[in-house]
């Protein structure tokens, strides 16, 4: 691909367990706030675990402007559209000017889509019978619904797609959106991810015994699994020259990304970590960077016994001795694992780290596993002047994506 353009990020929006918006999220990351608590979105009494990174007190009508109907929008649709409005407002593109609509697209990573509403339909069906159940609850079950609603609400006419590669979907959406702009298929993109909490996903991870019954403890020797979370994370991507021409503020740049697969196992990573290694190497190659250029790694860091040791090995394999001097943290310890949204949410984390000059910590890691021997920033957030951040997303099925973000200095640069 001809890289005759630099692609920058000019707007951010999020809803997650520790941030009702980006400003709140940045403060929480810096303070090391834990958003993992008892779930009250649905009854967890029959489950083995009861905690998660739920977005508490979400009121769609307070987050979505009144001109947009929320009728028949799933929780995922509502969260992602609320984050979209925040990102566009942040980018000084809301209300969206008519001239942007034709060449603006949307790429979203997702997972559970409208499953929560579908579950509610079946609850109603079992209680009241088919004739008394509102089947419109099923109309948003498909994962692409959130991108559909974003596009139709904003009357976008550019490319639209949804990735469903589990926990790497949000990261892949960012890379793909960058490619669409580089290829001239879109002039500006909304890219990100969304994952709502729901009973089926919660049950599935419980059945796999992948969930810690307390809070997740990435890289800790007593870690016992991940904490499930929910989030929407939306970023506005555009070419640097376009951003400069309209006087936009600029959070940073997507320098490159890599996508690989393990072809190994449905839920376990390749123990040799070759998929993760190749993902980071592909991202470095795409960025034209050397291993020595990376200042901070936002790890996948799920806190499952196998992920953390495998990811650590992969980082050692890619960076050699330098692995020991690169801070690595898992912000999932704060906002939990947001699956389809994770790569995009952690993209926002990476950009906030670059613009605000800090490294967010890995909380709940008290005694690192001897096999996890890197600098996991366990003492709390750290001041740091970062130039390049690498963010890993390694998903079930061996779906690996790494995105590399760069600091932007010049007209419009955001400083935290």
């Amino acid at each position, binding site marked *: 691909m001809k890289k005759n353009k630099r692609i920058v990020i000019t707007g951010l929006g999020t809803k997650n367990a520790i941030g009702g918006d980006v400003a709140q999220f940045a403060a929480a990351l810096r303070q090391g706030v834990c958003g993992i608590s008892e779930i009250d979105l649905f009854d967890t009494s029959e489950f083995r675990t009861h905690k998660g990174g739920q977005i508490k007190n979400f009121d769609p009508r307070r987050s979505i402007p009144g001109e947009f*109907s*929320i*009728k*028949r929008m799933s929780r995922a649709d509502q969260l992602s559209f609320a984050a979209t409005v925040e990102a566009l407002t942040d980018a000084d593109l809301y209300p969206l000017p008519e001239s942007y609509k034709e060449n603006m697209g949307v790429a979203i990573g997702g997972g559970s889509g409208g499953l929560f509403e579908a579950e509610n339909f079946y609850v109603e069906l079992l209680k009241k019978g088919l*004739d*008394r159940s*509102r*089947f*419109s609850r099923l*109309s948003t079950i498909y994962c692409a619904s959130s991108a559909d609603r974003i596009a139709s609400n904003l009357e976008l006419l550019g490319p639209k797609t949804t990735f469903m590669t589990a926990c790497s979907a949000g990261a892949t959406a960012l890379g793909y959106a960058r490619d669409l702009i580089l290829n001239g298929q879109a002039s500006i993109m909304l890219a990100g991810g969304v994952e709502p909490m729901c009973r089926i996903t919660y049950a599935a991870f419980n059945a796999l015994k992948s969930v810690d019954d307390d809070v997740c403890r990435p890289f800790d020797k007593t870690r016992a699994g991940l904490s499930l979370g929910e989030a929407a994370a939306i970023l506005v991507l555009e070419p640097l020259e376009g951003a400069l021409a309209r006087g936009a503020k600029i959070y940073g740049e997507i320098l490159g990304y890599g996508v690989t697969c393990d072809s190994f196992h449905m839920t376990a990573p390749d123990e040799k970590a070759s998929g993760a290694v190749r993902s980071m190497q592909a991202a470095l190659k795409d960025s034209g960077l050397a291993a020595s250029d990376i200042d901070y790694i936002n790890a996948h860091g799920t806190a499952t016994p196998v992920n953390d040791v495998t990811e650590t090995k992969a980082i050692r394999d890619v960076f050699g001795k330098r692995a020991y001097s690169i801070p690595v943290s898992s912000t999932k310890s704060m906002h939990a694992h947001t699956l389809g949204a994770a790569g995009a949410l952690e993209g926002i984390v990476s950009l906030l780290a670059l613009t605000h000059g800090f490294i967010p910590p890995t909380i709940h890691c008290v005694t690192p596993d001897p096999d996890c021997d890197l600098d996991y920033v366990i003492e709390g957030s750290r001041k740091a002047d970062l130039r390049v951040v690498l963010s890993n997303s390694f998903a079930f099925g061996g779906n690996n994506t790494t995105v590399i973000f760069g600091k932007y200095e010049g007209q419009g640069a955001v400083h935290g």
Partner: protein
Amino acid sequence: MTRQDIEREVRDIFLRAFEIENPEMDVNLREAYGFDSIDAIELLLEIEKFLGSELTQEEKKQAMDIRTMKQIIDYIEMLAAKRKTPPEKNK
């Protein structure tokens, strides 16, 4: 059940189920409020709940031509009257 009772209930259904506040009586609901075919089917379920009895296939077919609030209220009034006066054969 008066016509006012029916109107109050229909307005409540519209607000609760379709997010449509105080629809006008004589406007085309699809054109004015985006009331679509999924809404129409769910409105029939709500009407069944309101009347406390199921609609026959014939009655559901009669609803196909409804376009306005006024027609919905007329329709429910007709259904309610039918239920108050059982057909001859059931006497």
